[in-house]
């Protein structure tokens, strides 16, 4: 068993840098982006920037792309950005989906549980204004009407690269 892992590990090598695993290699800017991001995080947030994700009615595609940010190819963690299990450990709240009535309280409580300083970031069209579900009887409305949102990442869903790029832009300003 361990042999097969070793074999595959050696065969694959370090995908994050080689980038030949996928058909179209990532644009070179991802490395630069990441290095720049790392510096910003280092100076402003003391080495790391931790994000807690909350789904308030998303279809799951945004989640899938956020998870992809941590795969060995994009490996957002190497730049000091990480997704954490508890709002208590988080610097930012990443919200996906239109806000369903059922999730409104959970969203507020998650935000309240975070230590200061804290930021709210929305991800995907639905979270911006309810998207295609905005006229529904069960959608409360945009996340920004409930919490102070500082950044929106557009897309349906935004690709991992879009997410990484948007986070960089935000960290550069803040």
């Amino acid at each position, binding site marked *: *068993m361990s042999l*097969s*892992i070793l074999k*595959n*590990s050696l065969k*694959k090598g370090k*995908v994050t840098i080689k980038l030949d*695993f*996928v*058909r*179209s290699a990532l644009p070179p800017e991802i490395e630069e982006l990441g290095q720049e991001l790392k510096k910003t995080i280092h100076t402003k947030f003391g080495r790391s920037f931790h994000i807690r*994700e*909350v*789904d*308030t*009615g*998303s*279809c*799951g*595609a*945004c*989640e*899938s*792309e*956020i*998870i*992809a940010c941590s*795969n*060995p*190819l994009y490996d957002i963690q190497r730049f000091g950005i990480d*997704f954490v*299990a*508890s*709002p208590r450990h988080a610097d930012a709240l990443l919200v996906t*989906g*239109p806000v*369903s*009535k*059922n*999730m*409104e*309280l*959970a969203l507020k409580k*998650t935000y309240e549980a975070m230590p200061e300083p804290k930021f709210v970031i929305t991800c995907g069209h*639905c979270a911006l204004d309810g*998207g*295609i*579900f905005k*006229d*529904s*009887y*069960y*959608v409360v409305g945009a996340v920004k009407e409930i919490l102070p949102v500082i950044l929106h990442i557009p897309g*349906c*869903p935004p*690709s991992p690269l879009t997410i990484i790029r948007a986070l960089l832009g935000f960290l550069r300003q803040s």
Partner: protein
Amino acid sequence: MNHSDYVGNILGSEKINIIDLSEIYQDELYVIVDSTDFVKACHLLHKRLDSSVMMFFAEDLRQESQIFALYCVFLNVQSHTWLFVRQNIAQDKLKFDSLAKDIYSASLFEREIREMFGLEPVGNPDMRRLKLHDEVWPKEYYPLRKDFTGPKEDSFKGASYVFKRVEGEGIFEVPVGPVHAGIIGSGHFRFSAAGEPIINLEIRLGWTHRGIEKVLEGKDTNDALRIFECISGDTAFGYSMAFCQAIEKILGLNIPVRSQLLRILCLELERLYNHANDMGGIALDVGFSFPAQFASLIKEAILQLNEGLCGSRYLKGVNTVGGVKQDIDRVKSGLIMGALAKVKKDFIALEEMLFSSISFMDRVDATGVLRLRTARDLGIMGLAGRASGIALDMRKVFPGIYNNFSFKMAKEHTGDVAARLKIRCSEVKESLNIIQHCLEKLDACSPELKMTGEEKGGFALGCVEAWRGPVLVWVRLNTKGKIERCKIVDPSFHNWDGLSFAVLGNIIPDFPLCNKSFDLSYSGNDL
């Protein structure tokens, strides 16, 4: 004997009065019976056809004919037909006899009908609401009625939901969610445990309810298609395909062979990336991180391939009513061949890693067992059903273009996490073969992609075996081509109950593993 006679005979044998029996399409049979006979008729068909309740839904027809219509849908595998048993409920009666006492798989549907239409399933032991949570939604506001207007904001104070409770010495409850530790949908799990083993698990869902069925009403098919792609992000293609099938049936369109091939090609790509995701997820949930990361790269490779083919990593915007929008030419076909050759090698390596690890197999073997008997009673669908021994795959029942491909239906009988993993491994291999043969056939196929038809009203069911199981979409269009009523059933709606039975006797730390092996959709269930 044709289908209608067969069904007529079954019902006639118990002297059930048939008001109307019509074969609307070759594979859809509608039978209307008296309200007094409805339970008996459903019970009889449930037994004789050996089918669980596939769908059970209501429709508000008070404007046209002063009634609510209730449809209970069974599947006749032998004759490849859907059987819709309908009863009409007078608009002032507002109740019907519950099926749930005899047919468990009807239970959740009845609760849904009750909260959405205000029709009381008399005799259903569980009347709690599923999607409209008591805390935020007052009673007596039924969203799917045609005359629904939203509740008044200030009058409602909020009520509370009562969980099932296990009591006794040393028994404790562990509530989890709706916000979880991982990056995942929202759901609440309440475990009752004594020491390590789980004695009861109650799953409360509905957190991501967006009122999709109501939002769809009044939409034309193009707008609706965009919504269908956002019902469950990981099944975006499966949903859009099921919806298109339903509409094409209504309009009487036989879509070009090339489009049919392209559709199953995309459907199999969707199956591949999701199976890769889950195989990795199962490894991750036992802390076996190398194969988990390895699998995430396989998934990423397929998502990037998808983007290269149609500009969307989740295959959105491919389907359209009457065919597909995007062709796959020889260049793209080459891309697929190249990418999938690598993917195939990686899948084999992944499988070897997982199945040759004794400690991994020890964790998945005999964990989260869902027995055949339980699975049948609950009406478990798709992948999870096949792992427990229910040999049902809609690609075999309603093959369509799949007729041209020989593939083996995966089936296991142990019903544990390992079985669900093995099903995925075997389906991956079949999918890769199907895609390859599909590309060969595309070469010799005429370039026509799309058909258009006259606008027409009517109703029909679309059914697609997506990666998780059958996605069912029933649509009624009015003569202007707008949606009057749409009922969507995700396999997750049946299968969440299966999870709560599969975990019994397992330890709470194994719950994530069991959960991932089912990998059910929150948003597809909640709608």
